[in-house]
């Protein structure tokens, strides 16, 4: 039971907010307002569902055909704009939530990627991750808006990486005792 709660904590949390917000709507706007809002939700759900299924099939297939690793060696301190570009593409290709992405950043850091590339990676993952764009943004907000938003996000990883190489704060990757050049990510080194 506790396991079930933990695994689906987001669902329960959102469901709870839905119930409270729905109760408030019914109280403030009456049954008609409540029914109207539910109708809107159903319309959007039905409009979004097919695109989301296609997006999930695409993400699931891409994950099998694109190797996720072998990029850290192109992301060192001397890598310049090229390194930021590699980091941006790698970040966009990285699926999954923060529980997967931030440990991967640590792995890249220990494999020799510099802070500019790491930050470009984080920005590109958070903002333009293909999976999130395909599964959530295109179905919900439409292809035109998603493309506009994606284009506006594309240069940001470069800007952040360039700035990060100039921020006067010392930082070195946390040492977890792992050998520094271990090809730990991906299936192929």
């Amino acid at each position, binding site marked *: 039971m506790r396991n079930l709660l933990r695994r689906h904590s987001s669902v329960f949390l959102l469901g709870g907010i839905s119930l409270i917000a729905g109760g408030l709507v019914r109280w403030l706007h009456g049954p008609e307002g409540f029914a109207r809002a539910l109708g809107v939700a159903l319309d959007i759900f039905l409009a979004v569902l097919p695109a*989301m299924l296609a997006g999930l099939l695409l993400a699931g297939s891409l994950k099998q055909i694109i190797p996720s690793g072998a990029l850290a060696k192109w992301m060192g301190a001397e890598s310049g704009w090229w390194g930021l570009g590699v980091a941006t593409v790698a970040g966009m290709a990285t699926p999954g939530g923060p529980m997967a992405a931030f440990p991967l950043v640590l792995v890249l*850091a220990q494999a020799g990627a510099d802070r500019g590339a790491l930050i470009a990676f984080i920005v590109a993952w*958070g903002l333009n991750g293909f999976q999130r764009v395909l599964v959530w943004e295109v179905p919900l*907000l439409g292809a035109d808006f998603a493309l506009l938003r994606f*284009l506006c996000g594309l240069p940001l990883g470069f800007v*952040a990486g360039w700035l990060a190489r100039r921020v006067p704060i010392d930082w070195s990757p946390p040492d977890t005792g792992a050998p520094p050049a271990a090809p730990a990510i991906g299936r192929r080194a």
Partner: protein
Amino acid sequence: MTPSLILLFLVAFGAFGLALRRGVPTAKRALRETGQSIGRVLPLLLVAMPMAAFLSELIPADIASGWLGVESGLTGILIASLAGGLIPGGPYVSFPLVLSFLKAGAGGPQMVALITGWAILGFHRVIAWEWPVLGGRFVAVRMLSSIILPVLAGLLAAALLPLFPHALPRP
């Protein structure tokens, strides 16, 4: 069936075809991955959709059309950037909210700034994940180099918006 949906299905089947060419086990893994994702995403969608619809009934219309409206300009972009950073949760929270804001009259550049703020600054994510895994100094470097990005994205969107006449969904 909109053209973009047809295209998305074609690309998805194309990618699945490539996985199939790698062999049946690869294709099976892709399908299993897809099935697991559907099992994870569908319940979230089922509760997030009513939530966003109810919240948009409750949020006063003048927040979307005033503070973040088409006319709000740079001030609206600044507000949206900060507000984005404060939205907790994953894409199942932020994107339905943005959709209801857009339908209530929010401006495109402001919503681009909001999504960018949520994705890059997302303070809850920094506190829960980035700080513990990468340490406070790294977070300081990243925040200093990222803090202006949502505003930059909003300004860029304002410049590019004329090229995307169908970008804003309207009721």
